[in-house]
């Protein structure tokens, strides 16, 4: 029992560390087009992996803890609100789609990426008290499809090849 618990703690810690490193890599690699907010979504590799390997609860833990630590390390209150909203919404959608079991890992990741952007646009609309930024959504959606697909393919390879036994 304690052995399993130790394994679980180690696994979660490992996944959070990976997600944090990917967040850092993402923050130093410039990936900037004319629309702000376009990102690769690298940390989502760890989240999707967690979702498929240890389930929705585990992925939620990894994702939320990552958001908190990233805000403490590199962020401020506004960026925290943005990433928390994005993380929660995309996590909910990805868990539901995974449970529904009609889509591949890559499509689940795409849906997560798109909804991540939608949530962030919604928060931005509240912050600036105006709906005009909805017009950024098309560009963000297209980029989310592309990046989400890449991230999803990487994740599905990892899910297939990395073996984890918690027993």
């Amino acid at each position, binding site marked *: 029992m304690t052995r399993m618990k130790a394994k679980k703690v180690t696994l979660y810690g490992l996944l959070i560390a990976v997600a944090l490193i990917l967040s850092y890599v993402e923050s130093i690699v410039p990936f*900037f087009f*004319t*629309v*702000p907010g376009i990102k690769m979504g690298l940390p989502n590799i760890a989240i999707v992996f967690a979702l498929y390997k240890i389930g929705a609860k585990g992925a939620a833990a990894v994702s939320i803890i990552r958001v908190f630590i990233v805000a403490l390390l590199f962020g401020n209150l*506004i960026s925290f609100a943005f990433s928390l909203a994005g993380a929660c919404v995309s996590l909910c959608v990805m868990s539901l789609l995974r449970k529904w079991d*009609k*889509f*591949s890992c*890559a*499509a689940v990741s*795409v*849906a997560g990426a*798109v909804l991540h952007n939608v949530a962030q646009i919604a928060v*931005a609309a509240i*912050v*600036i*008290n*105006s709906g*005009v*930024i*909805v*017009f950024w*959504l*098309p*560009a963000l*959606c*297209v980029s*989310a*499809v592309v990046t989400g*697909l890449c991230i999803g393919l990487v994740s599905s390879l990892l899910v297939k090849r990395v073996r984890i036994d918690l027993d």
Partner: protein
Amino acid sequence: MKFIKKYKNDILLITSVLIIAAVIFAVSAGTKRQGAVAVVTIGGTEQMRLPLDQDAAVVLGEGEHTNTLVIADGKAGIIEASCPDHVCVHQGEISYEGQSIVCLPNKTIITIEGGKDGDLDAVVG
């Protein structure tokens, strides 16, 4: 064929996302009109309206939170900002109806609005 069958749901999902994006884009991509104005909103209240056909340079905001808005050649753009990330500066120039530049740190939005009654190309009937 096998590929399409296997990933039917995935393809449907991605296509629908792209279609929704295209629809929003189509709605937002209004045509460029004469008499368009740049509307400056700070903190949710409208501050000023600047016609795009007159060149101008204005410093928006006060104290430490400022953005310098320049209107030239019928386009509006922010060339200088007090914020650390300069996202608004990188957004370039805007001139079409519905386009906007947003500076989150300074809570400033520049939106293009066009189309007063006098701007119609033609009235039929």
